[in-house]
């Protein structure tokens, strides 16, 4: 039983990273209609930037994380300007942005490989906080605590931003009808770029957290985050913040439990099977919205 609780804590830590990633992924998808497969490499790049800041510039690790996230936000803006903004005024639907993001993904993934090579990197041992808290015979590492705290903060801030601010209202409106809100006097370009910035920055942050927690940075480690984050978004319901939080933690726990109790080989299979099953049972996710078509 103690093992179960210990794994639950580890699962929540892993889930927290998925939550942060999923919020970013869902944010750009539900508001700009972009299924951005490059978000996984954004996470990788977040970790890479933080890694170099830590190793070469000797910045404190929290600053590395913040600067890493901001840098990926900027990268997201650049990708948006190059790959998505030109498509926004043609009603291309899901298809064209998806292909464009595949292009961005290929570029970023290969550049990552050129930059850090095929080896596995890790943060220097002194840089990562390694405090361990003992509670009721369970171990809570400081990184797990930080992951969960960051996830909660990100979720709350995003919730407030979306629902309590004028900017949030613009973001939600742009997802419904861009032309109308442009007529209403909102600068849709600024709103779209801010959305892209936040989504990418969250992916970058998730990448930094993952790199710090597992201390494994490869040129493609973000891809696994993409896949499980995408599962969390779909099961939770696209566009639902609560869905992302629930889905993220759920998949964190599912992965850890299935590694512990089934086999690590089937951990991914179980994740994807849950995803497929959830899609079949609730095609719009747990908290997905339904809209009625007009003839």
């Amino acid at each position, binding site marked *: 039983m103690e093992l179960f609780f210990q794994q639950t804590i580890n699962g929540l830590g892993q889930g927290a990273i998925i939550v942060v990633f999923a919020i970013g992924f869902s944010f750009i998808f539900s508001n700009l209609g972009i299924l951005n497969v490059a978000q996984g490499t954004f996470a990788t790049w977040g970790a890479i930037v933080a890694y170099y800041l830590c190793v070469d510039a000797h910045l404190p690790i929290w600053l590395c994380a913040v600067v890493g996230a901001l840098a990926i936000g900027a990268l997201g803006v650049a990708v948006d300007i190059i790959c998505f903004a030109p498509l926004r005024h043609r009603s*291309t639907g899901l*298809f064209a942005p998806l*292909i*464009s993001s*595949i292009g961005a993904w290929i570029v970023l993934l290969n550049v990552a490989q*050129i930059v850090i090579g095929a080896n596995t990197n890790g943060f220097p041992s002194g840089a990562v906080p390694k405090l361990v808290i003992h509670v009721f015979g369970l171990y809570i590492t400081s990184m797990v605590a930080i992951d969960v705290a960051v996830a909660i903060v990100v979720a709350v801030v995003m919730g407030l931003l979306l629902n309590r601010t004028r900017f949030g209202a613009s973001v939600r409106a742009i997802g419904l009808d861009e032309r109308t809100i442009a007529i209403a006097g909102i600068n849709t370009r600024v709103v779209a770029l801010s959305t892209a910035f936040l989504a990418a920055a969250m992916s970058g942050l998730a990448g930094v957290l993952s790199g710090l927690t597992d201390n494994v940075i490869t040129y493609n480690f973000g891809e696994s985050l993409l896949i499980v984050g*995408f599962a969390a978004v779909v099961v939770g319901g*696209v566009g639902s913040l609560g869905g992302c939080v629930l889905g993220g933690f759920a998949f964190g726990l599912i992965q850890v439990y299935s590694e512990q109790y089934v086999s690590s080989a089937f951990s991914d299979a179980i994740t994807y099977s849950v*995803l497929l099953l959830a899609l079949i049972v609730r095609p719009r996710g747990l908290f997905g919205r339904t809209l009625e078509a007009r*003839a």
Partner: protein
Amino acid sequence: MSLSAWESNVQLAIVYAIFALSLYAPLSAGVLSVASVSSGALGGFLLAVMMPASGVASIYTLLLAALIGGAAAFIMSFVLLRLDSHYLAFATIALILVTYVVVLNASSVTGGAVGRVAAGTLGWAYLCVALVVCCWTFARIRLSRTGLAATVVRADPLVASGIGINPRHIQRALFTVGGTVAGVAGALLASLLEYVDPTTFYTPLAFTSLAAVVLGGAYYWQGAVIGAFVFTLLPYLLQEYFSANLDQVADGVVIIAIVIFFPGGLIEMGKWIRLPELGRLAAVGPGRPAAGQVLDTEKAQPTSLPAGTAGTVQRGRPDLAQYTARKEHDGAALEVRSLTKIFGGLRAVDGLSLAVPTGSIFGVLGPNGAGKTTFINLLSGVLPPDEGATIVLGQETTGWPAYRVARLGLARTYQNIRLSQGLSVLETIMSGSYSRQRSTMAAAVAALPGERRERRACADEARHLMEVVGMSAAEDRRAATLAYGEQRRVEIARALASHPAILLLDEPTAGMNAQESAQLGELLRSLSGQGITIVLIEHNIRLVSEFCTHAAVMHSGSLIATGRPDDCLAQEEVQLAYFGRRSDAERLESLRILRSDPGD
């Protein structure tokens, strides 16, 4: 690049072209899916398992791969097609991941992570024949009524449903075709690589194929082939100039550039240098001279419909009307009983009961927001009612999907014109006769003469319908680029192409001038003379009072008057609904302006 490198790369390009076609198939019906990779995995591992040991001839292995790939896709379609487009794309990606893990763990069959050696016996001949067969299949499907229906479904499932096409059915058919083709492609890929492992059929294959489809031009099957060749061969050409990884970076840049600068893909770029038109019209042909004669003989009665298509029979072509078995019934053509539709807190249609007599021209009037369009949407099955019943031609249709109602003999037009992007005028009208044609997709692929005859007859009839509705534009113009009034006529012609018993027109004269409106009125009268019941939503009161035999006035979702049009308009409640409470003098004045009897 050496000759042998060229050879293997071209072979790889052929396999990727077939994979790209397998993705194009569902996409042509508007389904963005990468599930073919899973069908391909079945084909690939089937070959790896069967070929070395069993001594089964290669051709049978290939056919079996096709069968299994298609069957898998068919079964998957029942789950996947229930999902909305975004989620479907998601789910098929998840499917690839599940396939990967299954392949990884079913090591007794698949060899697990190590993979499995496959016999590389399917050489040039198999590759070329497979590619040619696939191209032929897609070219024929594109010409067929299924292909036309798929284009309509892709552009607008609602319109497809309104002309009797079951979108799900078309999508399932093409999804299955995609799976079949993918099964073959998977087997060919395994044979070419002489090796299969879990990563052979993984997301890179999906994204490569998808990128190839887009690169070539997602609206044409030719695009998939061209895209696959360019996409496969380009990196090898670039390899000479770029180091490792950078060639792939260049690949990514090319994808982005194509999507942004050439959204139509390479094939549309080809049009700049005046390649021959890639549409379907050539194969609909010869038509033109024959149609000219037909029109001469029918000039005498320019607005007559091919009702019963006596004309087509005379010309020795099959009588399309023979297929339209209309149920004989007594009583009203349309009837609704306490019909109610609620949107949130708004009772858009509220306890509406009325009957439309057979053969009438029934005008539905009412101020904006009265619920007229919702009423038509309920009748045609676009929306399910919350309460009440709809009865079409004596058949209760409450809750039926639109395509079933359409097949009963109800056709409609739309208030906001809905013409499928990319279709010509002729094709748009031909799409309307989908549910009257009987040729199967297999007949089209086999190029049976019956299918060709049927298609020609439809094309001829569509040309005739252009005359009937008074179209002056060329038949090969893109319908969606026409002037507003012309677009309305195309919509009416498309509706008539299904030989409807009932025609619902939602503000057909919007965008027409007075003379055109009057012509439309005459057309309605002649259609009505041939036994078609017409329901007309109109704000043009003059048209209604002149041409309608019956009228009903709606206000806030309820009926406030029925009867002869002029009687309806004279009722005080109707005038109140339109004009609000005013003095008699003002009301008379407004009425006079509305009927536009200039000051006499």
